[in-house]
Every structure is written in C-alpha cells, then in structure tokens.
C-alpha cells in the first residue's frame, strides 16, 4: 500500500464548557475574550484516531487543516505536540462570518490543494454544535462519509473499517478510501502533549503571527514555518465565502438564565424515582 495521507480538520473554539456570567456580551454575541480558546474536544478525538493510524501504517502522515484567525495556528502546534507532522492555516478576512455552508466550501477548496486518503474531523464543534461541516465537506468533494465513528478498526485493500456509535448501539461499517470520517466524543481521548515535541515545535509560526523574538530559528529550521493560505491560495468563488456565502442568519439571541425555581425536589425512594421516570418518559426526555 502506498503511504497513507491523513488530514484532520480541526477548529479552535471558545471553551463553552466553563461558561461564566460574562460569557455573553450585552448585545447577545459571544464574549470571546472571556472564554479561553481551545482545541475543539471532538477534533482531539479525531486527531487521536489519526495518530493511531500513523503508528500502525509505516510512512503515514497526519496534517491539520484549520480555518480561523492567526491565533488558530495554536491548534496546529497543539497537534504537532501530540505527533502530527504539520498543518495548514486557512486564514483570510473574507472567511469572516462563515456559517457551516461557507466553511465547508472554503475547507473543501483548501483540501483541493492536498493529497489525502482519509479526512478526519470531530463530530461537531462545541461553539456551534451543528455537526454539519464534516458531512458537507464530504458532499462537496464527492466522497463517502462515515459519521459518529468511535474506532477505526483497520484498513485493508483500500477499504476502511469503522465502528460507529449510534443512539441505540454500535455498528461496524466498511467504506472505500478516500473518505471523510467524523469522530464521536466517546472515542478514546487524545494522547497528551509530548515533552520532546513541545520543545521541538514551540517556536513554529504561521506568517500572520510574526516570527517573534526567535526569527532566526524559522530560517534555520524550515519545519517551524506553518503553511498559511488565504483566498488567493485556494480556487474559490468570492460569493460563496464568509457572510455572502452564508445563508444562515441569526434572528435573535436569547440570554437564558437558569434559576433555582426550575429545579424540583424528589423523595429519595423508589416511588419518587418512579414518578420522575414517568415524567421524563411523558415529556420525551428519554424513551
């Protein structure tokens, strides 16, 4: 088999898991300054699957593709600290305000610059929770897709075997390469950053970030230069990008504050639990 080429689509997101009361601004938009920017959690699950393939298949390479502002290059470094070979930052003001359609368009065009056998990404990002970008990329590239993946069982004769985690169980499917696989949060957690790789790649920079104090290192070690693409580097139509290319419009934003009155006290006995179960089934929370 020829050397396996894996691209992981990853996104830098605000950490919505630790939302404080200043998470939203008065105008209803996300206060990004108050939320730390992190590697989207399910994209880390996807990266782990990619790195396991790299360990299994000699010569396999793993590259990250991320779209975002200059600081999103941190995602590429974070992936390299864990074993990725490198990455591409897709960055341009023209991408600002993209919904899932415009995002998947830009990403699929950027993928046109690359060779790949497997495109891996997280099921969804925690800032939008749409789970649309992965499948849309597959559609735009005319590739098959395997969603909700929990484990890549193997690759044989140009086909990948994947275990999927579904609502009521699991299924194992086979799919020809190249393909898009979106990975579920129930897949194994990503490995930690590796001390040696952190020391090796900590000065890696995308050009937009500037070289910083260690400019000479970028010349000495070309692997420290992260590839950066703007609209001119990918073949695309301006009308399909950013706000122009995004049919999704935010109508209103509601600031929901959970209050104690919405809680309900149960009696700690079988009857109390029975009552709760019936109520949850009746309002379709479960069942």
């Amino acid at each position, binding site marked *: 088999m020829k050397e396996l080429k894996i691209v992981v689509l990853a996104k830098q997101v605000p950490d919505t898991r*630790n939302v404080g009361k200043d998470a939203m601004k008065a105008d209803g938009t996300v206060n990004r300054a108050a939320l730390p920017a992190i590697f989207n959690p399910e994209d880390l699950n996807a990266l782990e699957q990619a790195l396991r393939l790299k360990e299994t298949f000699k010569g396999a390479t793993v590259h990250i593709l991320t779209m975002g502002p200059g600081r999103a290059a941190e995602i590429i470094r974070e992936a390299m600290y864990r074993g990725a070979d490198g990455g591409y930052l897709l960055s341009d003001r023209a991408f600002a305000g993209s919904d899932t359609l415009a995002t998947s368009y830009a990403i699929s065009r950027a993928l046109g610059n690359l060779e790949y056998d497997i495109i891996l990404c997280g099921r969804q990002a925690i800032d939008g929770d749409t789970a649309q970008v992965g499948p849309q990329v597959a559609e735009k590239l005319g590739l098959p897709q395997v969603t909700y993946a929990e484990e890549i069982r193997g690759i044989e004769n140009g086909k990948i075997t994947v275990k999927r985690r579904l609502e009521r169980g699991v299924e194992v499917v086979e799919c020809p390469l190249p393909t898009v696989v979106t990975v579920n949060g129930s897949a194994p957690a990503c*490995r*930690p*950053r*590796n*001390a*040696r*790789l*952190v*020391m*090796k790649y*900590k000065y890696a920079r995308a050009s937009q970030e500037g070289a910083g104090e*260690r400019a000479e*290192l970028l010349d000495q*070690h070309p692997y420290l230069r992260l590839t950066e693409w703007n609209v001119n580097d990918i073949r695309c139509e301006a009308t399909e990008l950013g706000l122009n290319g995004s049919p999704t419009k935010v109508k209103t934003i509601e600031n929901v504050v959970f209050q104690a009155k919405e809680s309900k006290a149960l009696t700690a006995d079988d009857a109390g639990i029975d009552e709760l179960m019936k109520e949850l089934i009746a309002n379709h929370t479960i069942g």
Partner: protein
Amino acid sequence: MANFYTDNTDIKFHLEHPLMREIVTLKEDGFRHADAHDTAPRDFEDAMDNYDKVLEILGEICGDTLAENAEDIDTEGPRVVDGRVEYAPGTRRNHDVLTQAGLYNMSLPREYEGLNFPIVPYVMAAELVSRADAGFGNIWGLQDCAETIHEFASDEQKSRYLPRGARGETYAMDLTEPDAGSDLQAVQLKATQKDGRWLLNGVKRFITNGDAQIALVLARSEEGTQDGRGLSMFIYDRANGGMTVRRIENKLGIKGSPTCELVFKDAPAELCGDRKLGLIKYVMSLMNGARLGVGAQAVGIAEAAYREGLKYARERVQFGKPIIEFPAIYEMLANMQAKLRGARSILYETSRFVDIYKAYTHLSNERPLEREERDALKRYQKLADFYTPLLKLFASEYANEIAYDSLQIHGGSGYMKDYPIQRLVRDARITNISEGTSQLQVVAAIRGVTTGHYLKQIREVYEQAVTPPALATARQLLATMTDEYEAAVAAVTTAVPAAPTAGAAPAVTSAEYVDFHARRLVEMAGYIIIGHLLLQDASRDEARVAPADIFVKYGRAKVAAHAAFIRDSRPEDLEAYKKN
C-alpha cells in the same frame, strides 16, 4: 480539569531561583548543543521556558489523570499472577500516559533519549506526581536508577539500557533482603561467575516495583566475605529470565506500588561498574538520589494534605461559621502551610546543590576542570551530602504532621474512608521509613553537626544575606537560635562521662552520648536552616513574609525545648533510659 503545576505558584517560584542561571548553563554546557539537537535550548530563557512548558504538561496529567485514578488504585492495588506483577488498571494507564508524554528519562542526556533536565525541575516533577498519587510516585521515581547506570555503567551498557526507560520500561532497585534492611552490609544474595557470565541466586524482599524490566541488584560477588566490601552492583534484565515474584506485601499505604519478594534462580546479570564497590560507592549514590526522591514525595503528599485540610475547614460550618475562623483551626493550618513551605524550600535548596555538583562531575568526564571548578564541585558535593538527610528527615516528618493535622481538621469525617485525607495519612507514613528511616537520616546528618558544616553555612552564607525589614525580629530570633544551637553542640560533644565509681570505666562513651542527643542537635540545625531559607524566599517575594515569620517562631520554640533538654542532661542519665 486541574493542573497541579499552574495551580501552585510556589513551584514556579522555586524554579525561578537566582541560582538556576548557573545550574542551567552548566547543565547545557554553555548551550552548545542547540545545533545538534532540535530539542536543546538556545539560551537560559529558552531552557527555562522548556521546563515551564514540560511541567505544565505534567501538571495537567497529574490533575486530570493521576489524581483521578488514585482512589481506585488505592482500593484495587497490584496482583501477582504466575510469578509476575500485574499493576492495577489505573497504574497501567498512568504509566502509559506519562510514557506517551515523554516524561521518563527526564534527567538523562539527549543521546539516551532523555530530556537533559537539571535535578531541580525533575524533583519538581516528582513532587507533582506524588501530590496526585504518592504510590505511583514510587514507580515513576525509580527512573533514578537510570542516573546510577548513567554514572557508573560502561558506555556500551548505557546505550543498551538507558533509552529503554523512555520507551515504557520501568526500573527497580533490589537492595533489601529479609536480614539486610537498614544494615545492607548483611546482603547475602549470591553472584557467581560461570562461563564468564554472572548468575544471581537468592531472595530480595520489600522491593518496590520488583517486577521491573530493568533492575539494579546488590549482590555478594566475593565468596567468603561478610561485610560491605564483598558486594557488587549488577544490572538485571528481566527478559533474560531467572527471577520470579513470590508475593507482594499488603501495605498500610502507597497501595498502588507493588512491594515484592523476589526469588533469583541462576538469573543472568551484568556487573555494573567495578567489583566490590556495590555498597560503598554505588548504593550511596543511589541512596542520595532516592532520598531526594522521598523528600519530593513527602512534599507532594504534604501539599495534597494541606489542601484537603484547607478546603474542609473553609466548607465545614459549625457553631454558625466555617471552622477555619476558629483560632484552633487557623493556627493549625498556618503552621501546616509554614512547614510545607519550609520543607519545599530545603527540598529545592538541596536539589540545587546536587545539580551543581553533578553538572561539574559530568563536565569533569569531558575535560579537566579549572581549579575554581574543582573547588565548587567539592563544596557543593559536601553541601548535597549534608543537606540530603536533613531534607529527608524534615520533609518526611512534616508530611506526617501535616497529614495528621489535616485529618484532625476533618474531625470524624476524616476517620472515615470517604475523604482523600485517610489515604494521604497512610501514604505519608512510608516517607519517614523508606530509603532510610528518620533515625538513619540523623546518623547521616550528625556529622554535619559535629564537623561544624551546618554552622558554617548558617554563619557564613545565610546570616550574610539581606532580608526584608518586616522580618528583622525573625532574623534576631534565628541569631538567638543559632547561639543556643552552638552552645548545645558544645555541651554534648565536650561532655565527659563520669565513672560510676572511682577508677571504673564510664558506663557510656562520649560517642554514645552524642548519638543520644543526635536527633535533637540535627533538628536544631534544621529549624535554623529552614528558617533562613524561608527568610531568603521572603526577600524575593513579600507574600512569603508571613509563613517565614510563623515558621521561625514555631522553630524557635522547638529549639528552645531541645536546648533546655540538653542543658539538663548528663551522660550518666543514659543508664535510666536503657532500663526498658
């Protein structure tokens, strides 16, 4: 979602000690490796940034993985299956994650897949690991064995064994036997040569992580000898067979760490270094490293215990307010914090001494040292030798005191197995026993008292340092304590035992009288030294004034008590103590 490095600024404070510039520059030999190794630092700032980043990775693993697994590991523990050790599942996961993160071989050179970290950040890592799980800290900390191989084995052995530690293999230090514990001269495990190969036969007991892939084994290579000069050090590779685990002990604490009884039957091994130097040279080196490790383990446990006590005291409401507002509780917590800070200060002071002398030692293998460098090597080696037992004594006893007080703050809840403090109390209890009991640390440290080394360091170094005005009283107290210490040392060392009747031999010797008061004298030196170290810390950071002041007042009372006891003591009193 916890990071044990970033949530504890005390560690970074010690990482940024002014002496680090010299240590790092020596360790990296003037930063001349940057072009040969892409992970080598370019300068001091680059190196410090590396340590910071790597400790940050470790801190996250400690908070998110090790601490989370600690309770299950404590309950499940390891098992013996068919003569081999099976770790608890959490132990296995901890080890795998730390291997993936590249956090073994931390202090070894890069050519052996090491990180080439100085001892200071390595000891910090040990502290972090132990705060999360002290039992696992034992397994992780055995990478110390690699230091000994690095120092004394042949180049060929080094390149064969050392990289394996970075690839997931672990170490053991096989010293103790049923009849050779504190007294290692009595080791009986036999090493005999057959067809040019060494074979090991015998039993080892209480061996931490005994089923490791690579072990350093102390064995009797010289037939017919009875003392330490007949012992040599061997490297045993488990892959060669011949060793089985007979049982593992059921311990009070550090349950996740398998303590093994090993049987060697014609187990092939390789000589490490020279014959007959096993105990007198290599074990001494191994032991100093291990004692530093236990010091770090003790400080890690103390940190965890202090935090548990503080948290409980803030949350627990009695008589209408959080119990931390009662003097009995806040005094306890303040003393715990002061002892914790003090133990940590002497831990890193000792680590810095070790760093400097080790760096010069390695440098001396590459080129002849200048006269000044040779002097520095000797001076720092002596300091390391005298500070290591002092550190181990104080850190381990404080870990116990802090854990004890923390449990007390928990009241009845602390006695239940529902809170982490019960595990910390059990785990702390090993620290003043293993790698030399506190009593043995006193034996090692007393020479620092009788030769005047501690006093010299206090008078010539610490008393010359500038301290913040807010601590003028504390400084005065330390001066008084030092005078009392000096008088007590003189009283004990010059006492002439009286004969029971005229003309008869005295019932005790002068040496026995010094031994009798040794712990008191060593402790007095310790209180003064730690007090000075905390004063120095406060001169770098004002927020440290209060714990320094609290410690000195606490230590002053202890020194006064010891001084009073010694003043009232006579050599002939010992007779009464012997009647047990």
